[in-house]
């Protein structure tokens, strides 16, 4: 049964998730739910375990225990390459641009997992830099350009749930702004988005709910409307 | 910012740490020394000398590979150059005392090392390995072609002669203690190099070359020096070998030998001081024991199996694994 109490469709339900890198125990029981069409952020300090949470969902960490349901389907047993097929698009923290491929190849690399993804044209109009450099080696791009590429890449696949890790890192404000608009567009198209962000000021206006991660646990859940009220609490958590 | 901490205390702690490490080193060296001093009474001296020569060879290689991060696939060239040169001089100039012959052999190998280094040092990673391989193949070709090496038949009947014109090295025990002295000298030298100011830079270069450059280090010079030292020690190993066995052969120059020293180092534990010594002892022993026993037709497959096992089961080598184990269980 994948219908939450509220009756909205549960795209992602993580419960009691522990994750380990070899010896070190990173996640200590994450619990979170993301409904279809929601944009949820994971906030927290460096090393809190946000990236790890996303990686764990993608089955990219060493060892995991607990439960991860995608579209109401238990995925703990799934091989990594099956997860994407469930309509999940992942944009990694450190971009993961392939040096063996040129920009265009990088863009078209991830297989389309669902219909309704963006076309190359749409993407290029959104990121003119990429069009300009489309035939140069992926890793020869500037830091920011690589970031754009990493993001753009998964918009093509038509995934209906996006896990985005620090997508504004190293981007010029003007691009950050543009990304903001993009996310809103995607959201309106009904995509589900889990956003890991350092730049709270970017995330705040977009998100429906915020999870605050600390020492590998969810310590606070704040919905958009509570934001004013809990601002100071949040600042303590994030040390702003 | 963090609360102020007492710098002096921390420094003291660090120094104590160092002393503790040094003490450990001393004890280890002591044990090693005693073992080696006693060995010839337990084992066959010539065989022990063989092990020492290869151990020295592996130690030399490890200085470059384990501590500088440069994989040379051509170290056989230096071993062979050392042994042929020494062999040739001692056989043809009866006036020459043994140590002079050995020094000469080492010198020539060192020069060759410099040449190799200058030609290869700018190449990165696997390309570096392959250039050294290519160069050593050319050296091999030279040795095959030249008359003085005796080609396939090899160079035979090299006189051990008298050390300093005094000590008769035909006596296996004299010979052994001479080889042992040289080996220990080199071992300690490498130990010193690794912890020396220079060693620190090598470490840094190995771990993050661009950063070392941006700090103003001309990394290639440091690499060249490391290469030359390594080549010199390898050459010395060869020279000693030719005197011990009284022969020099193409096997020393063949690329298999370059491979063998890599194996020894890895099996023993690369980047550790004792590793290559243990590795050499292990490999030489296995090969020897097997070639004698009932399994003598199966040496190659068994060796192969051992290498596969090493890589799969204990990748950081015998010594490396022991160190890990100690760290884990004894704090």
């Amino acid at each position, binding site marked *: 049964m994948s219908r939450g109490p509220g009756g909205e469709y549960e795209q992602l339900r993580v419960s009691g998730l522990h994750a380990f890198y070899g010896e070190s125990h990173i996640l200590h029981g994450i619990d979170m739910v993301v409904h279809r069409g929601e944009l949820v952020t994971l906030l927290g300090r460096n090393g809190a375990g946000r990236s790890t949470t996303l990686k764990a969902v993608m089955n990219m960490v060493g060892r995991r225990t607990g439960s991860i349901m995608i579209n109401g389907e238990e995925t703990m047993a799934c091989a990594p390459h099956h997860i994407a097929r469930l309509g999940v698009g992942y944009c990694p923290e450190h971009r993961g641009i392939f040096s063996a491929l040129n920009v265009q190849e990088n863009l078209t690399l991830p297989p389309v997992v669902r219909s309704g993804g963006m076309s190359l044209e749409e993407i290029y109009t959104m990121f003119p830099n990429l069009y300009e450099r489309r035939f140069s080696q992926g890793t020869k791009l500037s830091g920011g350009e690589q970031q754009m590429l990493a993001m753009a890449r998964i918009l093509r696949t038509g995934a209906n749930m996006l896990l985005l890790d620090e997508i504004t890192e190293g981007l010029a404000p003007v691009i950050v702004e543009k990304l903001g608009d993009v996310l809103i567009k995607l959201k309106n198209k009904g995509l589900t988005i889990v956003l890991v962000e350092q730049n709270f000021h970017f995330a705040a206006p977009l998100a429906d709910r915020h999870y605050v991660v600390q020492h590998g646990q969810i310590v606070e859940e704040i919905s958009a409307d509570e934001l004013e009220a809990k601002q100071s609490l949040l600042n303590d958590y994030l040390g702003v | 910012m963090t609360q102020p901490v007492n710098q002096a205390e921390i420094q003291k702690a660090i120094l104590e740490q160092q002393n503790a490490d040094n003490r450990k080193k001393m004890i280890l060296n002591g044990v090693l020394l005693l073992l080696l001093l006693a060995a010839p009474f337990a084992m066959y001296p010539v065989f022990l000398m063989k092990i020492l020569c290869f151990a020295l060879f592996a130690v030399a290689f490890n200085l470059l590979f384990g501590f500088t991060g440069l994989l040379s696939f051509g170290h056989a060239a230096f071993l062979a150059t050392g042994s042929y040169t020494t062999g040739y001089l001692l056989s043809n100039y009866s006036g020459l005392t043994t140590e002079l012959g050995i020094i000469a052999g080492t010198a020539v190998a060192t020069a060759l090392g410099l040449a190799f280094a200058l030609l290869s040092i700018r190449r990165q990673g696997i390309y570096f390995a392959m250039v050294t391989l290519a160069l050593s193949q050319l050296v091999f070709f030279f040795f095959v072609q030249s008359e003085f090496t005796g080609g396939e038949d090899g160079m035979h009947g090299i006189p051990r002669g008298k050390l300093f014109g005094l000590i008769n090295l035909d006596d296996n025990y004299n010979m052994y203690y001479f080889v042992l002295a040289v080996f220990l000298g080199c071992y300690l030298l490498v130990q010193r190099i690794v912890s020396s100011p220079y060693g620190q830079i090598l470490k840094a270069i190995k771990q993050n070359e661009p950063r070392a450059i941006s700090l103003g280090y001309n990394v290639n010079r440091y690499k060249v020096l490391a290469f030359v030292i390594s080549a010199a020690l390898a050459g010395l190993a060869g020279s000693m070998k030719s005197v011990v066995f009284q*022969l020099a052969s193409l096997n020393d120059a063949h690329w298999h030998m370059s491979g063998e020293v890599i194996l020894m180092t890895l099996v023993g534990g690369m980047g550790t001081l004792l590793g290559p010594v243990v590795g050499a002892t292990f490999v030489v022993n296995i090969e020897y024991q097997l070639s004698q026993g009932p399994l003598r037709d199966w040496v190659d497959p068994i060796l192969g199996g051992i290498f596969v096992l090493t890589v799969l089961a204990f990748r950081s080598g015998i010594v490396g694994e022991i160190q890990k184990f100690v760290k884990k269980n004894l704090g």
Partner: protein
Amino acid sequence: EISNDTVKIGYLADMSGTYRDLAGPNGLAALEMAIADFGGKVNGAKIEVVSADDRNSPDVASSTVRRWLENENVDMVAGLVASSVSIAVSDILQENDKLGIVSGSAASSITNEHCTPNHIHYVYDTYPLANGTASAVVKEGGKTWYILTADYAFGHALEGDVRRVVEANGGEIIGTLRHPFPTPDFSSFILQAQASGADVVALANAGSDTTNAINTASEFGVTQSGQTLAALLLFLTDVHALGVEAAQGIQLTTGWYWDMNEETRAWADRFMEKTGVRPTMVHAGIYSSTMQYLKAVDATDSDAAQVVRKQMMETPINDMFAKNGRIREDGRMVHDMYLAEVKTPAESKGEWDLYDIVRTIPAEEAFRPLSESKCPLVTSK
């Protein structure tokens, strides 16, 4: 009397490398056959055998032999294939005044520059190989020669010997080509040999080089185009590997062939029971030399190197391997050699039915005469 009441024989050979098949494990079998046939005991003293793989490395060989001689009082070392190994070992034998019998090596230098009073070279060497084949081929009208030489000591020696013989018999060397060892592909060299227009293309190499060359030669139709192919060192195992298809008509010199007479066949059958293959001349030589050694020990009731060697030299060898073979003071065992021709597929009646013995080369003709010897043992006389 016999030291500590045992005669201990060390068998050292390449057990895993390029020379494995011509001596190797089966050589050990031959050695054991000899001991068994001798009765397992000599003058009441028991006979022990130790064996090792020399890995074709003088290092390994010398440390093995040193230990055998110095710690395990081995009395005699047999086998000995790679010339680098044989020479290295002979030095050590001399140091320790023990005896060695070289059966596998081809280098004639072993009883020439490198001769010692402590070893015997038994089966063959490059001299008779060149002698037998070359003189025969020249006499049959092969006047102009082109030689493909393996570019190392053995090849050079063989080439030199061939040149001498050919020119002595009124032939002419119109070209030689030194190829690296080993060479996987001979097409380029064969092509040059063909272009040279020589009557004879001679192969002064061994093992896989020779078989590769012969394969390629037949592929490029060397014989069809009227040239004669002469292989100077070819073992039964090589021809077996080539097959009569590719090797037919090739002339070669051998010290022994299993199918020469009742005696050889009988022994070869026993050998085959034990090993599953037919013996090479080296296998037979190991058997014969071991017998000769044990007889000498028996006769002199001693295992001291010089005593035994002397006795071995004094008793002529008459067994399935050699008739009136004798060991000279330079350590060379001289005996009749045979010029063989590889059978055609039509003639060959089985896997191992490979040679026709064309001619017997008398001992005194075959080997380097003492007059030409550089061996101190001879010249110092």
